[in-house]
C-alpha cells in the first residue's frame, strides 16, 4: 500500500509538466522542490540532531554566491558545482566549529550572529559580492549538454536532484550514523559513556546538513539566475526554519510538506497582500504556541479536539430529550 502510494506520487511528480501545463505553476513547483531540498538539509540539524539554527540561509547563500562568481569567471558547470559545494562545506565547517561551542540557546545565538556576518559580507563587501545589487548570471548552465532553459526541463532537473536528496535522507535516517545523531540529541551523556564522540557526530551532521543546503542554494541560483543579500537575511533563515517546524521535525516527509506549505502561503500571500513578513511572523507565533508538533499533526489534533468538543456539547442535549 505504502509502495503503491509512493509510486503514484512519483508518477504524478514526473508527469507534472504535462498535467499542469501553465509554466507559472511549473515554476512554483520547481521552487517547492528547491526549498524542500533546503528544508531536508536543515531538518538533519533541527530535527535529528536537535540543534536549532537560525543561520542556515547563509550556507544556502554561500553556495549561490560562489556559484555565481565562478560562472561569471567563465567556468564550466562541473567546476561551478564542485567549487560552490566545496565553498559551502568550508563555510559550514567554520560555522560548526564556532556554533558547537554552545548548545541549546547558545547555539541559536551564535548561528544568528554568524548568519549576520555572512549577510554583512554580502551587503558590504562590494568588490566581492556587488553589495545590494547582487550578482546575476546570464545563462543557466547546461549539465552534460542538456538545455535547462525551459520551465519543464528545469523542473525535471530539480526533481532528479530532489529525489537524490530524499534518498540520501532515507539512507541517513536508517544508517548507524543517523541513529548516532539522534542519540546525541536525546542522550548526549549516555552517548559519551558509550564511547561516541558527541562533538564529532554533531560536526558531521552539520556538514551533511550544510552540503544539502548548498545543493539547494546552487539550484536556487540556476533557477533565479540572480543572488542578492536578501537570500542570506535572517528572515530567509527563519523561513527555512518555519518549513521544517511547520511540517514536523525529525520526519522525512515533514520538511517537504513544510516547504510546499510555505511556498504556497508565500505565493498566495504575495498575490493578495503585501505583508508577507507579517504573515510569516504571525504563522510562526501561532504554530509555536498552538501546534508545537508541526502543522500537519497539529491540525489533526486540533480537529479531533474540536470534534470531541462538539460531541461533548451535543451529548447533554441528547440526555435531556431521553
Amino acid at each position, binding site marked *: 500500500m505504502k509502495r503503491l502510494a509512493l509510486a503514484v506520487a512519483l508518477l504524478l511528480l514526473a508527469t507534472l509538466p504535462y498535467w499542469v501545463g501553465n509554466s507559472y505553476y511549473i515554476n512554483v513547483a520547481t521552487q517547492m522542490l528547491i526549498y524542500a531540498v533546503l528544508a531536508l538539509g536543515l531538518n538533519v540539524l533541527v530535527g535529528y540532531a536537535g540543534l536549532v539554527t537560525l543561520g542556515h540561509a547563509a550556507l544556502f547563500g554561500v553556495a549561490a554566491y560562489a556559484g555565481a562568481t565562478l560562472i561569471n569567471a567563465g567556468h564550466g558547470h562541473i567546476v561551478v558545482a564542485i567549487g560552490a559545494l566545496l565553498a559551502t562545506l568550508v563555510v559550514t565547517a567554520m560555522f560548526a566549529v564556532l556554533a558547537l561551542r554552545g548548545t541549546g540557546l547558545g547555539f541559536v*545565538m551564535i548561528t544568528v550572529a554568524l548568519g549576520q*556576518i555572512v549577510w554583512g559580507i554580502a551587503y*558590504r563587501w562590494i568588490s566581492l559580492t556587488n553589495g545590494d545589487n547582487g550578482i546575476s548570471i546570464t545563462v543557466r548552465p547546461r549539465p552534460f549538454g542538456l538545455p535547462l532553459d525551459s520551465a519543464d526541463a528545469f523542473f525535471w532537473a530539480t526533481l532528479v536532484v530532489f529525489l537524490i536528496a530524499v534518498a540520501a535522507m532515507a539512507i541517513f535516517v536508517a544508517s548507524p550514523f543517523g541513529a548516532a545523531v539522534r542519540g546525541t540529541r536525546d542522550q548526549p551523556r549516555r552517548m559519551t559513556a558509550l564511547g561516541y564522540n558527541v562533538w564529532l557526530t554533531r560536526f558531521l551532521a552539520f556538514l551533511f546538513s550544510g552540503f544539502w543546503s548548498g545543493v539547494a542554494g546552487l539550484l536556487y541560483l540556476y533557477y533565479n539566475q540572480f543572488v542578492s543579500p536578501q537570500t542570506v537575511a535572517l528572515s530567509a533563515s527563519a523561513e527555512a526554519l518555519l518549513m521544517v517546524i511547520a511540517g514536523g521535525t525529525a520526519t522525512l516527509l515533514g520538511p517537504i510538506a513544510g516547504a510546499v506549505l510555505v511556498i504556497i502561503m508565500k505565493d498566495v500571500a504575495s498575490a493578495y497582500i503585501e505583508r508577507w513578513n507579517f504573515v510569516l511572523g504571525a504563522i510562526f507565533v501561532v504554530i509555536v504556541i498552538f501546534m*508545537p508538533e508541526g502543522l500537519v499533526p497539529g491540525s489533526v489534533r486540533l480537529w479531533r479536539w474540536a470534534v470531541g468538543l462538539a460531541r461533548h456539547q451535543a451529548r447533554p442535549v441528547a440526555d435531556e430529550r431521553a
Partner: protein
Amino acid sequence: MNLWLILSVNSVTLGGLLFLLSAGFSLIFGLMRIPNLTHGSMFMLGAYFGVSCIAWGFGFWTAALLAGVGVALFGAVIERFLLRRLVGAELAQVLVTLGLSFMVADVCLMQWGGDPISVETPSALRGSTAVFRLAFPTYRLAIIVIATAIAAALWVLLDRTRLGAMIRAAVDDPAMARVVGIRVSHLFTIVFALGAGLAGFAGVIGGPILSVYPGLDQDMLPLALVVVILGGTGSLLGSLVGSFVVGFLYNFGQAVFPELAYVVLFLPMLIVLVVRPQGLFGRVAL
C-alpha cells in the same frame, strides 16, 4: 579636531547606546534564558514612538521617556500573554520572539513608511562643548553622560536594593528563589519590561545620530548579540565592557576597512567563543 579623536568620541557614544540596548538583553537572557530576538525591534519601536511623540508636540526628552514607557508596556504584554504560556520551552520562546520581530518590523513599515526619518537634536544640545581645549559635539557628550547615569542606576538597583537582590537570586538559582518566597514570574515581567523600556529609550536618544529607518532593528540586534556573547550573559559589567569594545570596533572598522566592517566587528566575538565560551565576565557558558 583630528579624525581619530572624532572616531573615538563616536565610538564611546555608540558604546553608550549599545549599553542601554544590551543591558536589558543580557538581564533578560540571564534571568529568563531567552535570547530575546525582539530586542532590536524594541529599539526601533521606541525610536518610532519617539518620532510620533515629537510630531504631536512633546519635547525631545518627554518623548524619549514616553517612548521608553510605551515600549516597556508592550514588553510586559508580550511577556505576560505570550512568553508566559511557554514557560520551560525556551526554544519555543525564541521562535515566538523571532516571529514577533517580523510582525513589529512590518507594522512599523506600514505605520511610518519606508523612508528614513531624521530626529532633530534637542536645541539646547546643538553645537559643541570645549573639554580640555578640544571641541566635542555636545549631544554626543550628553549621551555618554546619560548612559553612565543609567549604568550607575542599574548597578544600584541590582546590587543595593531588595528587588535587585531578588533578581540576582533568581538568576543564580530560580528554583531555590521560589522556595524562599520570591515570585520569580513577577520578576520575569518586571525585567522584561525594564529591558524593553531601556531599549526603547535608547532608540529615541539614538535617533539624532542613527536616524530611524526600516531595518534599524536588524542592524541593532546583531550588535546586542555580539555585546552579550563578548561580555558574558547576566553580567552588567560584561555588557558595559562589551558595549564599548563593539562601539570602537564598529566605528574604527568602518573607517579603516569599510568593506570588512562587519567581519572586524564579529572577529573578537569569534575569538572569545573559541577561547572563553562564557564571555569575558560571564559565569556560565552559553
